[in-house]
């Protein structure tokens, strides 16, 4: 199969120890010690203060990185199609829903219920930005990050439009955590475009291959920064983008199906930034 191409224009990353790309990029490159976690919730400045306080963790997490990636790409979020992906969605709300139902279903909060849909972050994103472009929200268990990236890249290639790709997972709590374990919070957003531009940071060639899948891992010090998070497989790509050097990556799509990604600096003004 011929390789397809896309250009990374914007990156957003957030975890309690990697709060934003400026810190995350420098830390992943190995240039500085990772700071101690400062907070468990990103600022999500996109949301008005009252909504920010009420918004579920998964929503502020996804919106924080989505807004950062669009800002870096200098793209208007209103015009961007988007792919939102998460292994477990919003586990805090799942825990609330199931615990409340076990007690008395009549006590379910209507707001928590409508926030329980897997597409809540995508919905809030379009409401906050006024984006009428389509989004999708998906999941693929252990293959969620690879599948999210492939879905966004496929849309870039098939429709020749820029696409925002957002992958996130939060900490699972309560009984569900025994079956759906995820530690801490981690989210990565990318703005991917079909053509090079002044904001291109990396050129990405990709194809899908069958056979044994050996997923690329980040360097051990970096892997430790997101250990146990369900979307941690996004960190190898984030590290490659931070390094700014050519890199081959493998992401799993199914037990015997891989997304092969080849990254090169785009050579633009910020190519190595």
């Amino acid at each position, binding site marked *: 199969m011929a390789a397809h191409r896309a250009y990374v224009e914007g990156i957003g990353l957030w975890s309690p120890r990697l709060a934003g790309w400026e810190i995350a990029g420098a830390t992943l490159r190995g240039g500085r010690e990772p700071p101690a976690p400062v907070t468990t919730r990103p600022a999500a400045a996109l949301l008005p203060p009252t909504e920010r306080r009420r918004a579920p963790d998964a929503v502020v997490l996804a919106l924080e990185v989505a807004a950062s990636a669009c800002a870096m790409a200098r793209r208007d979020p209103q015009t961007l199609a988007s792919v939102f992906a998460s292994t477990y969605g919003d586990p805090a709300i799942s825990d609330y829903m199931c615990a409340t139902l076990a007690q008395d279903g009549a006590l379910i909060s209507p707001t928590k219920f409508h926030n329980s849909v897997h597409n809540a972050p995508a919905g809030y994103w379009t409401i906050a930005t006024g984006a009428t472009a389509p989004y999708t929200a998906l999941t693929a268990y252990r293959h969620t990050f690879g599948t999210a990236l492939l879905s966004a890249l496929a849309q870039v290639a098939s429709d020749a439009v820029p696409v925002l790709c957002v992958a996130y997972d939060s900490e699972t709590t309560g009984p569900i955590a025994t079956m759906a374990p995820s530690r801490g919070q981690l989210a990565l957003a990318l703005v991917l475009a079909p053509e090079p531009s002044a904001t291109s940071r990396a050129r990405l060639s990709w194809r899908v291959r069958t056979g044994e899948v050996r997923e690329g891992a980040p360097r051990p010090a970096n892997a430790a920064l997101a250990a146990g998070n369900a979307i941690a497989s996004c960190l190898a790509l984030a590290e490659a983008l931070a390094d700014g050097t050519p890199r081959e990556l493998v992401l799993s799509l199914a037990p*015997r199906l891989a997304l092969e990604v080849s990254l090169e600096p785009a050579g633009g003004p910020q190519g190595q930034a």
Partner: protein
Amino acid sequence: MRPVPLNLTAYTAVCAAGAGRAALLEALRTRTGALKPNDFTATPLPGSIGRVPELESEPLPRELAVYECRNNRLAWRGLRQDGFRERVAAARSRYGAARVAVVLGTSTSSIGATEEGYRRLDATGQYPPDLRRPIVHTPHSLGEFVQRALALEGLCVTVATACSSSAKAFAHAERLLRLELADAAVVGGTDSLCGSVLYGFNSLQLVAREPCRPFDLHRDGISLGEAAGFALLERDGAGPWLLGYGESSDAHHMSSPHPQGLGARLAVEQALASAGLGARAIDYINLHGTASRKNDEIEGTLVADLFPATTLASSTKGWTGHTLGAAGILEAVITLLALEHSLAPGTLNLSTPDPACGPRIRRDNEARPLAFALSNSFGFGGSNCVLAFGRTRPR
């Protein structure tokens, strides 16, 4: 680049109104609805539901037992209708297991199993041993189950955009086929009744007291249902065609539609444009038509605005209930049956048409040849998807 037309070489669905195409068609012809008083929740809730019978006594085969839960049982029943599994097996032999993608929509997947786990926690706060199966406590439970049940090894995605999920699965799969990342795709979805949705919609005060009455002056909300449906998409074949689709976001509110139907209009217009069809070419529209006050008024007005009097439009949720993430595939299958059998279903339980919903809404069934049709799906989070189907390819 426009979507490429794809052939539906097999399709089927199961819901309260019938299992398989013949039973569904018969229910539509005879106007036999399947909504009955809610008997699902432990404490009684008002309203009617479209419950698929006897799932409780129909376990999954032993080799698939790790996926055991109501949602996957319903999916399994769907896969066994109308020779669907055999058609997929033939595609698998033709293209190879890695070249047949699985793209399925669901809203709540197997959350019912997680709810049960919470009801049956042991003294140490652990799930009971029979529910210690991680896969059924993740939203991808549906996609992985169907991929395994069909012995496929290609791309596998669970789309979860609430009530547009299984309609958007068609659009997602079309892109994969257009890029030759797959040669065929199993699309569709499954959603099953569970406490989350029954109590959740009740908390939003969106549930009707009686079986739902789409577009009726006295409609008072939705009736929930459950369904599984599947279609096999290939580049060519003897079945009807997916000609195009439109996807959009309302950018308005999490659980209320845009008051002027902005996103819905965008999705309809894109579906027509991508299919290369004008509004006059559309013979039938299967509406989202949930029977909620706002949705029906906005959708009815939009259809009256965009389509001529020759376009028949109806909601079939009076037969099936609102099957949430499965509504897209269930109503796609109903739309395909309408095209195939020259029968535009009317709207069940509609007695007094609401003038605010415009003049296009049909109450009665109408037998007439239908060439092109749309199916509308709109969901929480403002996610809209409209599919365009044809009996044949245009031109």
